[in-house]
């Protein structure tokens, strides 16, 4: 692989990373507004406020970036980058269609999970380095939640890998069969719930719970660094939606997959992202103790059961 190719691929991944989260964010603006009987942004850019997030970005860049006096300056300043780069790296290995992928890593499933595991450090660093009580509490909550829900996610992903007999994301899509929608359903549910929790979105937004701990680990952040955390959150939705599509919905499989595969992936991922946004509007926040119980007493056993089903099924059918 030549240096030029590496550069081109990296830049394309970066472009996708900067565009797709904005699309999700704008969709959230509009979908959430309509679900609440509002219109949402209507002015920026002219047509139904399509440029609202661009305007927000410009605004964020013009805002003063305050580092609190008590904060640990370097850790405080680097935390957004850790969150951001983790999701950027995760995005780079997700395939769009057959052969179209930033980096076709052999053990793609494990790679995405590992990249997102590193992202846990972001909120934890932010929470500690702010030297703020709300931030520390939020950081603790974030890390405990991300760890607890990482496990069901790993189990559900392992079940899919088991069903496909490969760790490569492209390989999983090629092995996918519509029947998976049925016998991987518990795993899919577990994965979706865990993914929403990993994204720290409603109903699992206790780390950010604004009515309890201001804004959790992001309390002290301002300006562009705050914007980067938000970008990471929406990039997270993109990554999770694509990953869910690839693992459970068959990625680019569908009619005219040869020509329209990329469209299928995007359509399915958009549907998943829509569902994630929908959850945010429809449901209230869970309580902190319910959160951990749900993870350990519902999702983990369900994930293990799915694993058992998959294992036995695969052994019996081969």
């Amino acid at each position, binding site marked *: 692989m030549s240096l030029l190719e590496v550069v081109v691929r990296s830049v394309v991944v970066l472009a996708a990373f900067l565009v797709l989260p904005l699309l999700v964010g704008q969709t959230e603006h509009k979908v959430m507004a309509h679900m609440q009987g509002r219109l949402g942004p209507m002015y920026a850019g002219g047509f139904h406020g399509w440029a609202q997030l661009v305007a927000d970005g410009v605004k964020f860049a013009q805002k003063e970036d305050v580092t609190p006096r008590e904060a*640990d300056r370097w850790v405080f300043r680097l935390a957004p980058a850790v969150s951001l780069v983790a999701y950027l790296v995760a995005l780079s290995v997700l395939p769009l269609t057959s052969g179209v992928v930033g980096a076709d890593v052999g*053990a793609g499933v494990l790679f995405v999970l590992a990249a997102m595991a590193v992202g846990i450090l972001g909120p934890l660093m932010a929470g500690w380095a702010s030297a703020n009580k709300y931030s*520390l509490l939020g950081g603790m909550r974030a890390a405990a939640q991300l760890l607890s829900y990482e496990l069901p996610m790993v189990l559900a992903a392992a079940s899919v890998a088991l069903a496909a007999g490969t760790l490569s994301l492209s390989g999983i899509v090629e092995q996918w069969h519509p029947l998976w929608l049925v016998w991987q359903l518990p795993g899919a549910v577990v994965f979706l719930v865990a993914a929403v929790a990993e994204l720290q979105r409603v109903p699992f937004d206790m780390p950010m719970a604004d009515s309890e701990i201001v804004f959790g680990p992001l309390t002290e952040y301002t300006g562009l660094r705050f914007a980067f955390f938000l970008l990471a959150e929406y990039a997270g939705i993109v990554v999770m939606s694509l990953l869910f599509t690839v693992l459970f919905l068959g990625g680019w499989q569908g009619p005219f997959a040869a020509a329209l595969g990329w469209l299928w992936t995007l359509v399915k991922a958009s549907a998943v992202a829509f569902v994630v946004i929908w959850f945010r509007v429809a449901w209230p926040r869970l309580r902190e103790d319910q959160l951990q119980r749900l993870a350990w007493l519902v999702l983990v056993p369900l994930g293990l059961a799915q694993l058992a089903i998959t294992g036995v099924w695969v052994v019996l059918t081969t």
Partner: protein
Amino acid sequence: MTTLDVLFTAVGVIAAASAVLSVTTRHVVHAALWLVVTLGTLAGCYLVLGAELIALVQVLIYVGAVVVLVLFALMLTRAPVGPSAEHDTGPVQRVAAAVVAAGTTALLAGVLLAALGGRTVQIHGGSTTELATQLFGRWVWPFELLSVLLLVSLVAALAISRLRADPDSEVRS
């Protein structure tokens, strides 16, 4: 020197440097964060050597879980922002640690050099499938024993945490 050699050297130097920083820094949490860099670059070393699965597991377990555990423990037990003198070690301990570290390095280097010398070893068996075949075919007993080990540590940890939690809950109810 091939590209791989260059990459390995670069990653190794970063790993070693961050390891040194992690033991010399006076900020407790910084030490843990430097440990993240060390473990992450170690994963890079494994990757350059062709062990993809090991590298990814290294990131997933060590960076994503073990270091987070360490950070948790630090933050729960009062980790101040800024250098902390009370966690510092005295000169005697430092010298002792340096001697032990140098001794370990010398021993390892000696053993490895004596065993392999200047020979180039062909790497094989790094692929995930081969590793899995070995693991589930040949190393079954260590694998199963590992689960028992994990169980024991889990029960032990729960027992320790219960020592604190139980009187509390009795008081409350």
